[in-house]
């Protein structure tokens, strides 16, 4: 990214003119100059290896074993069965395969909608809070609160709001506004998907807001002045100044939010108390339940690896496409 010389990049650097140049860095003098950076990195690398990389490799290995409840106590005895776990879990004609596919579609819809709404709310708040006014700091703090809350506290509160008989949502919809005659269930059945979506947007949009707010601080005010002198109205300025200037932030933000929501476990786990209804059966919950219900860690690992491969392909495609688009603009 740093080597591109497109126009927006050049503009973006400008406000940072006071900060150090990004050219080659002079190395501090010292006898172990070449070894020192590696020593400094060693703790981080060892921890990442121990908790992320090695378990990942082990996970791939587990996915090739018949690691069922009979072998879980001493998994060195588990027989190697090659790709059998993948064949069994990804076979779309089997019941397990159909459930996995269903869970995949639910997760995909959930992620896309959640990211879309979170971004929309985030950009709205960031844009309207861009210019100073009285009470801005308070609103900014308020908007960040859902993100600062521990996820379980936030989601438990929502599950209280969504209770059929004692919750606020039905109280307002049925008792106060009279929009519905029946009290609907929000945490089971078809509604559960939408409940999950609302809770997830409530939790995630402040993060989008935070990043977009940070991004907007890099937009020089003169650009707006110039656009206003040219007679550009609000929407025109949004389209021609704000959004292009936020493009680098958006590229990262959308991908990160997508990966987070696609892997989301906490929200459904707390909202539904560990037994997510079929309509809101996100893939992480699906793998978790099928692994710990049957103690078949082999096929659980196979599903996790398949999930990882899917996300890698999506991320790579996304980065390729967005990079190519940027080169076209250059």
């Amino acid at each position, binding site marked *: 990214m740093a080597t591109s010389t497109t126009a927006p990049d050049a503009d973006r650097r400008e406000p940072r003119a006071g900060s150090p140049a990004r050219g080659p860095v002079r190395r501090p003098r010292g006898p172990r100059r070449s070894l020192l950076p590696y020593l400094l990195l060693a703790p981080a690398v060892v921890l990442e290896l121990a908790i992320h990389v090695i378990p990942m490799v082990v996970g791939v290995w587990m996915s090739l074993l018949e690691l069922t409840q009979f072998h879980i106590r001493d998994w060195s005895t588990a027989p190697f069965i090659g790709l059998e776990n993948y064949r069994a879990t990804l076979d779309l004609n089997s019941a397990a395969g159909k459930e996995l596919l269903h869970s995949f579609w639910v997760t995909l819809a959930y992620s896309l909608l959640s990211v879309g709404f979170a971004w929309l709310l985030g950009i709205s708040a960031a844009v309207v809070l861009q210019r100073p006014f009285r009470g801005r700091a308070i609103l900014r703090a308020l908007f960040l609160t859902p993100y600062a809350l521990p996820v*379980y506290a936030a989601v438990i509160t929502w599950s209280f709001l969504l209770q059929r008989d004692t919750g606020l949502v039905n109280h307002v919809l049925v008792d106060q506004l009279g929009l519905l005659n029946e009290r609907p269930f929000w945490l089971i059945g078809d509604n559960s998907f939408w409940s999950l979506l609302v809770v997830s947007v409530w939790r995630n949009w402040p993060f989008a807001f935070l990043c977009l707010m940070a991004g907007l601080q890099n937009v020089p005010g003169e650009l707006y002045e110039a656009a206003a002198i040219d007679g550009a109205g609000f929407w025109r300025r949004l389209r021609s100044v704000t959004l292009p200037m936020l493009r680098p932030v958006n590229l990262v933000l959308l991908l990160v939010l997508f990966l987070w929501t696609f892997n989301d476990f906490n929200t459904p786990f707390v909202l539904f108390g560990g037994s997510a209804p079929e309509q809101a059966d996100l893939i992480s919950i699906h793998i978790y339940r099928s692994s710990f219900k049957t103690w078949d860690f082999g096929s659980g690992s196979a599903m996790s690896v398949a999930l990882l491969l899917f996300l890698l392909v999506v991320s790579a495609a996304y980065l390729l496409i967005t990079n190519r688009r940027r080169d076209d603009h250059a």
Partner: protein
Amino acid sequence: MRETAGERWGRRIVLTLLALFVVIPLYVMVTSAAKPLQDVQNGFTWWPSRPTLQPFIDMWSTVPLARYLVNSLVVSSIAAVCSVAVAIFAAFAVSRYRFRGRGVFSVAVLSTQMFPGILFLLPLFLIYVNLGNATGIELYASRTGLVITYLTFSLPFSIWMLVGYFDSIPRGLDEAAQVDGAGPLRTLFQVILPAAVPGVVAVTVYAFMTAWGEVLFASVMTDEGSRTLAVGLQGYSTQFNVYWNQIMAASLVVSIPVVVGFLALQRYFVAGLTAGAVK
């Protein structure tokens, strides 16, 4: 640049809707924590029939909340401090040195953040259990295991943010210190860290929040003795009764420290994100 009337009204409407969306659940959390039990067992009420602080007293005895709280505090604090210490050295290396593997390290660290947690969960669970059986090092169901796991969760983002912070500290300061004969580590501790205090504090709070709120690993890697708040709060729903007022009271109590910390430091998060996002 003047604001048109349309823009002003648009702003007010957007802000009002967003504020309502955010505030309503928070309002319910706070008011329901002050309700007697019958208020939360019958229909919903906007205001307690008789405001009471009883739920804040009862919540400690319905479940062993104090033990969960201590577990969460110990695990999150140690994980946060260790994570930031490790991140400071790594960020210093990435920010101030050019070395082979620097690019790979930066990308690899950030990408681990993106992997599904469930992918590590099953192997890590088995590794901890088997390691315990083989060597007697108790990582499964222990707070040590949780600390080690959690500190790696916040590490990538902490490194990323600190690199942004360190990059924004003029290198002239390093050079001045070196002229005075300071080695790299003294430069780090006496020049860079003092200038990056807000960033370090913000990252510490972030690491604490990450550990404080984690649910997936807490639900698998703990037992009754090492259980943290993330799992413990579910104990208020018994077979016979759901103590919603106590749940809300407990949620409020465990939220306040992290919310206050985060909001007090939000400025520095924005600064860190700005510095990091420009790359």
